[in-house]
């Protein structure tokens, strides 16, 4: 970049172009959304199939998939961090939001272990999915995530009108609209932006 006298208009253009360049490098979180989206989608639908069609007593065993998924998520996160050349406030906020969400899911699971899993618990999980995606969508200024969060909240309310078995399907639907579809759209948006 050569040094020369430049006008206030050029100064403003330079400021705008530099800010736009950092916006494109905000980091691609879609891989984490896709990982968790597909894992939880498989768990919800897998649990429904095991319970409804195979009448398997320990139908909840599918949720053990969360353990390798957590390890994979930590590994991917560390790998992304070592490659990342910038740290943003949005990136940090997203990290702490999802860390907190993970802790909430864990605590909710602990509570349900104490009071029993056969309660109508899926609306609570769906409500939390909605909260995470709604806030993430607002941070990233990405409307499909915001819409996904709103739809997840609507599904949380709708699920209360159905029995436990069918609530799993509401959970799967919430994950599809609030994690998986927005994650593919986010990935598409990021790859288009990096091509510019």
């Amino acid at each position: 970049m050569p040094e020369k006298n430049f006008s206030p208009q050029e100064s403003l253009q330079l400021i705008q172009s530099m800010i736009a360049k950092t916006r494109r490098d905000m980091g691609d979180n879609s891989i984490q959304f896709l990982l968790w989206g597909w894992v939880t989608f498989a768990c919800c639908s897998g649990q429904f199939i095991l319970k409804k069609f195979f009448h398997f007593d320990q139908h909840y065993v599918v949720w053990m998939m969360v353990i390798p998924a957590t390890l994979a998520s930590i590994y991917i996160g560390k790998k992304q961090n070592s490659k990342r050349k910038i740290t943003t406030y949005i990136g940090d906020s997203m990290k702490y939001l999802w860390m907190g969400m993970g802790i909430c899911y864990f605590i909710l699971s602990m509570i349900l272990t104490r009071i029993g899993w056969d309660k109508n618990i899926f609306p609570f999980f769906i409500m939390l999915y909605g909260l995470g995606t709604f806030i993430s969508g607002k941070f990233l200024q990405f409307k499909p995530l915001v819409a996904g969060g709103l739809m997840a909240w609507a599904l949380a309310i709708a699920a209360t009108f159905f029995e436990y078995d069918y609530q799993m399907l509401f959970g799967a639907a919430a994950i599809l609209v609030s994690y998986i579809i927005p994650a593919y759209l986010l990935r598409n948006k990021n790859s288009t932006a990096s091509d510019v």
Partner: protein
Amino acid sequence: MFEELDPILHSQLRLAVISLLISVKEAEFTFIKEKTNSTAGNLSVQINKLKAAGYIQVIKQFNNNYPQTICKITKEGVEAFELYVKALQSYMNPEGQ
């Protein structure tokens, strides 16, 4: 009006560096070099000037055994940038004063 513009910031490369740092928490030297299309030598000189003015903080560390230089805007840097933008706006819209 030009005289009111902060001379430290009214330089293309230094302004580019500050504009990059204003929207992030911190950035690596290599990222700034890539985004500003500058040479390492020139960028180092300009970064040192910004550091001397107290506008940025420079942290030298190791990441996976490789040396890494991290730059971070300071509170003084944010204030100076805001004043600079305000001065630019008043220059461009004098009737708005």
